[in-house]
């Protein structure tokens, strides 16, 4: 059966009347007015709402909200703590990196210094060796020159005796007889001049 709400409302009072005649008064009141505007139910609803909502309010205020608030606070504290911890660790890591870089720079500087020193030492050693060698060569050159000079002087002196000997031999062959050695020597010297 298709029943519209209008028909239902029409039918309701009729049914209520029928029931009233049958002797039950309560359904008549229920069907009489639109239920939300039935003032007879107001005291009961207000009373029970005050009781239930009051208890609900107290329960939430005393038990639930402190608990949920505490859970959220603890979590927030924990998150802040963890963030602090992470920041501290990051700081430590940064410091370690800085120290490492400093040490690296120092080590590099040291290495450069050592290299420089080694190269300087090598250079100066090479220089001194070169100087020593040059000095030796110089000395040898000087000695050689001296020996050449002495040999030359000796040779020059021997040239005089050879000339005297040759002269005396020539004089003896040409003139005959003995020759005065001193005379010849003087003559050679004058001729050599």
């Amino acid at each position: 059966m298709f029943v519209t709400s209008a028909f239902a409302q029409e039918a309701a009072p009729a049914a209520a009347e029928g029931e009233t005649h049958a002797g039950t008064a309560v359904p008549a009141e229920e069907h009489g007015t639109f239920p939300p505007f039935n003032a007879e139910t107001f005291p009961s609803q207000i009373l029970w709402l005050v009781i239930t909502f009051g208890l609900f309010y107290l329960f939430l205020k005393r038990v639930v909200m402190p608990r949920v608030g505490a859970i959220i606070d603890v979590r927030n504290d924990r998150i802040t703590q963890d963030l602090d911890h992470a920041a501290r660790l990051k700081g430590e890591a940064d410091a370690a990196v800085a120290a490492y870089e400093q040490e690296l720079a120092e080590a590099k500087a040291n290495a450069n210094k050592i290299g420089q020193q080694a190269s300087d030492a090598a250079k100066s050693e090479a220089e001194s060796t070169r100087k020593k060698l040059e000095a030796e060569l110089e000395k040898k050159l000087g000695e050689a020159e001296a020996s050449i000079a002495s040999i030359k002087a000796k040779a020059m002196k021997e040239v005089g005796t050879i000339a005297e000997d040759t002269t005396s031999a020539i004089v003896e062959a040409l003139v005959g007889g003995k020759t005065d050695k001193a005379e010849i020597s003087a003559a050679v010297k004058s001729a050599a001049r």
Partner: protein
Amino acid sequence: MAADKVDPIHQFQIHPIIPLHIGGYDVSFTNSALFMVVTVIVASAFLYMSTASRSLIPGRLQSMSEMAYEFVGNMLRDAAGKQGMQFFPLVFSLFMFVLVANLIGLFPYFFTVTSHIIVTFTLAALVIGTVVVYGFAKHGFGFLKLFVPHGVPGYLMPLVVAIEVISFVSRPVSLSVRLFANMLAGHITLKVFSGFVVSLSALGAVGIAGSILPLAMAVALTALELLVAFLQAYVFAVLTCMYLNDALHPSH
């Protein structure tokens, strides 16, 4: 009784489970009260159990509890500043209560607590009451500066003050009617479309074929209602934050 099955209003009816009368008032424990209790127990149990392990790395359920907590916390801090955080328990319990009540109402045969104007109005009155009491306690008559905006020319002042007063007075009404009307209309629409499906399929083969369209609508509406359930809880909480901001800083 056949009429009751497709009567879209039937779901909002309140009937007593444990009759109770105090001082001439009917304060019976009704189905509405039952679902208030269910709402409170479900919301409390979810928040309590999901955070029981207090894990540093939350599971899915704990994440949901924490998200709800931080969502409302940020909403309140953005709207009312650091001072507003003293109202955090109030706003958080309002948000959770409305949200869970809305969501529970989506289950078939379950009663929707927030579809009754008196419930939403009581919650709205609680908010506005807090604003007024705190506002006067904190600022004395300085709280009335709320109705006197800066930089308005003198001749416009009576008009502006009247408008501000009306807007303030209509706040509890708009706050409660918005939530109530959304839940009510959503559930009626859902019920009407579901009723079409039942009525049409009783007509035989043609009716069953024809009932596919309202069925699809009912499915789509359920998704929409799920969104509305979240959205209305959010809107209720956001407006609460903004009204509380007025109590903290009346001069705007």
